[in-house]
């Protein structure tokens, strides 16, 4: 947990549109190498927007974003991060193996090297026997594993994950949580993870960043001192429950007093399609 930060945000603010809806305001955050940082907050608090700002998919209105010691834009152009969305975003016309290989194709890896790497990743996410399947033949959990394998394919130092397990059932989610931790330990990468789930955030993270209702600010940062490696038993430990309670209290203080879906977050994020 040392060295210069992988992600460094200084006074980052994002305002959308002429109406001036402020998604995130005055965010200061450093993510150190090897950390697993979760962003948690009510719907519409701008946590997805913040993740996209780190990935240079959304431009901040003001403030400074440094990723891997360079501008967010340069980091994107250098393919310094892999990203996983809530939907697996697999290309239907590509098989599992070819979906995983897509970034490698763009990086112009040769065929043999690509095939070897894809085989490795299929083992890693335990999809043996599904390499030649098409996405629509897989369950939601399997699709998301393909998506994670694709994000890891070129071994980026930073992994950005936007509610990757949000659409999955509780059982699958918990299993994939365990797998993600295993992958995180094996790869030694840094992860920034957006989630709605308090227990997921506590289970996975080394730090939980609690955000307040829009305009999203950092309400609190909770250090998670649960021992590594974590497993199913971790969820039974008293310390786990204490931390869940602590995060829940911080959320409440941040104005998370109901669960209504604030309008607009999806639109604002989705409005970024390039013409």
């Amino acid at each position, binding site marked *: 947990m040392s060295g210069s930060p992988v992600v460094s945000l200084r006074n980052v603010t994002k305002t959308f549109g002429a109406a001036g809806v402020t998604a995130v305001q005055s965010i200061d955050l450093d993510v150190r190498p090897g950390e697993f940082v979760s962003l948690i907050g009510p719907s519409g608090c701008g946590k997805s927007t913040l993740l*996209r700002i780190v*990935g240079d*998919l959304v431009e901040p209105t003001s403030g400074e974003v440094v990723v891997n010691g360079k501008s967010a834009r340069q980091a*994107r*152009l*250098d*393919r310094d*991060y*892999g*990203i996983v*969305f809530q*939907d697996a*975003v697999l*290309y*239907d*016309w*590509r*098989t599992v193996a070819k979906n995983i290989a*897509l*970034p490698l194709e*763009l990086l112009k890896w040769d065929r043999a090297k690509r095939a070897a790497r894809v085989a490795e990743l299929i083992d890693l996410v335990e999809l043996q026997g599904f390499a030649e399947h*098409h996405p*629509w033949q897989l369950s939601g959990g399997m699709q998301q594993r393909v998506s994670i394998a694709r994000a890891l394919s070129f071994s980026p130092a930073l992994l950005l994950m936007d509610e990757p397990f949000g659409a999955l059932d509780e059982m699958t989610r918990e299993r994939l949580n365990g797998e993600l931790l295993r992958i995180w330990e094996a790869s030694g990468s840094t992860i920034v993870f957006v989630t709605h789930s308090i227990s997921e955030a506590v289970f996975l993270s080394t730090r939980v960043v609690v955000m307040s209702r829009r305009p999203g600010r950092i309400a609190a940062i909770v250090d998670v001192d649960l021992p590594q490696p974590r497993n199913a038993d971790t969820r039974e430990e008293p310390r786990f429950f204490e931390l869940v309670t602590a995060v829940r209290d911080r959320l409440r203080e941040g104005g998370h007093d109901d669960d209504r879906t604030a309008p607009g977050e999806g639109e604002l994020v*989705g409005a*970024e*399609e*390039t*013409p």
Partner: protein
Amino acid sequence: MRRLRRLAWEWLPAIVVFVLGIGIWEGAVQGLDVENFLLPAPTDIVRTLGTDGGELWDAAFFTFREAVGGFVIGCSLGFLAAVAIARWRTLQAAVMPYAIAAGAIPIIAFAPITNNWFGITGMTSKMVIAAVLCFFPVLVNTMRGLTSVHPSQIELMRSYAADELTVFRRVRLPNALPYVFSGLKVATVLAMIGAIVGDYFGGAPGALGVQIRRWVGIFAFDQAWAAIVLASVLGIAFYGSVALVERLTMGWHPSVRGARPE
């Protein structure tokens, strides 16, 4: 073997309808003593296909080539226009009204004019008519396919620092393929109609539409009907070959995979 049986079951309803239809037609013509110029019996039409087969085939094939030529021109232009419009949205406002106008042209009114422009006996004038008919459905469908990409698919490509050409080749184009093929399939049928209608307003002596008019003029209804049968057989073959290409290029697509009931 199981596959063959499944295939047989799939086609059985169509075959039953065909046999029944032909049977009722034949029976009605024979039993009610229908005059030949009103409706010739299927057996008469088949006999004519046997005796005048060569001449009929030449005519049908001539018009078929007009249709295919128009199809290629119209579909290519429709596709390219869609690509341009999807890329430069401002073009949409500039071009779409005219594309819609082209789609709304009453083709019967247009045919004599293209004859004036491109020569009455050549193939070009008929190809132009077929092309005008094909243009619109291909344009609209392709445009839809190119622009209906989910935003996160584009975001993902952006995260890989992919340039616009890469996004087009790897995401927009494959995403558009199912749409493009629906446009192309509609266009096959329209191209045949366009070519035959074009012939009606004057064409090469050997063209099918011209021949149909001539035969009707001399009360040779068996020939006219035989010509119509040939035209529809070629139309079906045209449609079928595009559908086959669709299957071959889009084996991945659920609609293709799932087309056969398990």
